[in-house]
């Protein structure tokens, strides 16, 4: 990480305690542009806390998160989104009562209209460009056949892909994925890996939190290992794979 100009997200000296529990202790992390950066670690290591600090859901006790020139700490979730940091949740957060197409149109409107626009007399029928783009993204993720269905009726794997579509239509500068394949069947997981690889070829920067080592080693350019709120190892997949500290703390050697 020598080239500072390529750093998209810079987490510096972040601390967070819940009651007496040290959830994050002195976390330093640099995410390089265009790279897929995986954060792994056992349950309770602080992965989700770290992600929540990055998107403004949690305020750190000390330290700062900078996105380019902007400080993310203290900003609201919608301000962070408008800067181009978009998040996929561990349990899919979609609009269950709306159709898939509407689900994807809404984030496209957010990208175009900003955080508030009173377009009460416009017509969605007139927004052909927007609707076409939404259809393209759904097609890209293989959801085009269901686009007029109500999204609540989809399978869990499809909901996750829908959420991914909702994030991708915003062309984020940084995409944060919280266990994008948790609870998925193997073939669904492989499909998601394939999709994420395709996005990578478009140069989108991604941070992935993941349990599944198959996913991590298929996608990541760089891995940070978190254990008990601290980063215990940091490097390329090969470096991390060979690190005895990591094997002891998390992998147990068996998964590799």
């Amino acid at each position, binding site marked *: 990480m020598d080239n500072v100009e390529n750093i998209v997200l810079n987490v510096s000296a972040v601390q967070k305690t819940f009651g007496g529990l040290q959830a994050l202790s002195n976390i330093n992390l640099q995410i390089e542009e265009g790279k897929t950066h995986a954060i792994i670690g056992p349950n309770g290591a602080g992965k989700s806390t770290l992600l929540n600090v990055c998107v403004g859901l949690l305020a750190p006790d000390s330290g700062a998160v900078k996105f380019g020139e902007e400080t993310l700490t203290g900003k609201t979730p919608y301000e962070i989104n408008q800067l181009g940091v978009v998040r996929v949740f561990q349990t899919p957060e979609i609009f269950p009562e*709306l159709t898939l197409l*509407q689900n994807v149109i809404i984030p496209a*409107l957010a990208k175009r209209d900003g*955080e508030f626009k009173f377009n*009460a007399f416009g017509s969605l029928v007139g927004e052909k460009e927007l609707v076409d783009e939404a259809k393209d993204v759904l097609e890209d993720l293989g959801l085009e056949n269901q686009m*007029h269905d109500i999204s609540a009726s989809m399978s869990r794997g499809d909901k996750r892909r829908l959420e991914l579509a909702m994030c991708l239509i915003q062309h984020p500068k940084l995409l944060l994925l919280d266990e994008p394949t948790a609870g998925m069947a193997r073939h669904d997981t492989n499909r998601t890996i394939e999709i994420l690889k395709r996005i990578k070829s478009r140069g989108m920067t991604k941070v992935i939190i993941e349990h599944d080592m198959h996913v991590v080693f298929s996608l990541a350019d760089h891995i940070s290992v978190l254990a008990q709120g601290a980063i215990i190892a940091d490097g390329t997949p090969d470096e991390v794979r060979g690190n005895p500290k990591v094997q002891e703390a998390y992998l147990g050697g068996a998964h590799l």
Partner: protein
Amino acid sequence: MSQQSPKQDLMWMAVFTAVVLSMPIWMEPFGAAYPDLLQKFAIFGIFAIGFNILFGLTGYLSFGHAAFLGVGSYTAVWSFKLLTMNVIPAILFSTILAGIFAVLIGFVCLRRSGIYFSILTLAFAQMSYNLAYSVLTPITKGETSLQLELNDPRILDAAAVAGAGLPSTELFGMKLSGYPGFYFCAVLLIIGFYISLRIFRSPFGLKLAAIKSNQKRMSYTGFNTRPYLLSAFVISGMYAGLAGALMAVTDPLAGAERMQWTASGEVVLMTILGGVGTLIGPLLGAGLIKYFENIFSSYNEKVLHDIFSFLPDMLENVMVFIVNPFVGDGWHLTLGALFMVVVIFLPGGIMEGYARIVAWVKKDRSQPGGDDPHVAKPQPNEG
């Protein structure tokens, strides 16, 4: 929230206009074709349509919308007293003032959601109601209610002829009582419905529906939800103000009881009874409740004896005995029972019942058997 083509929408508007304007004709067999009741249909229709923009689209249940109704009525009567008997300034001022009130109340109440929002709005409305009876009596005239007087200034109108009675509301010389009053309200209802239709179909409306569906996702999608909610709140408050003004137009007096919580509750019942979040449902709910209130409450034992006179005496007396508690002063019992039946069996209101019948007829025609009728299949729609 189905997207229909603008052409279909225009057709629906045409049908809607025809149905509303011909109400004096087709309401005749129901015994409801008299101006007083028809005006109420239109006025409460406007109130319910506006309420539905807030409750139906965003899911925020306000229990204080009667406050805006009251503000609208008082403003309209003051406009009649001070400026002119012409109704145009009255409804403009009422709508705008109700909107300003809604900005203030909404700004505070929308800091909370769910039940806390409902309680806050209820508290504000009850506060307005009590203020109207106490410290604000110079403006509201308290218990005597605000009325027209012979010595009102009415600075824009020609001086009244000595000895003439109280003037009536008018639209450029046309007196707005009876049927003209109904048609005036009906035209505003049609305009109000059209605006609501446009909002439902707009990107703004879609965003409101998305807030109802998942507010967390909305803020992570980059939307500041507060101004959206406030806009919806203010729009629905303005509809309520307009409805209040029209009450004063058709009967120029304003009392504090218009702001009471029962009036707020009534519009909630109307919306739920008709179908929350549907375009036409709240109107049906408003019509049904006003019909019950006016028709069922006018029944008494003698009328019931006439209705059941075809039965043998013994049975007639039994029927009258059974039905009597549900009519006259007991019409609330009928309404309550109906409301319970709808909420338990048709949570989506009358419109859900209609959708189920349509689905059932369609399925019956295409494929016997098939899937569960309780799962309403959304219609394929074109974006």
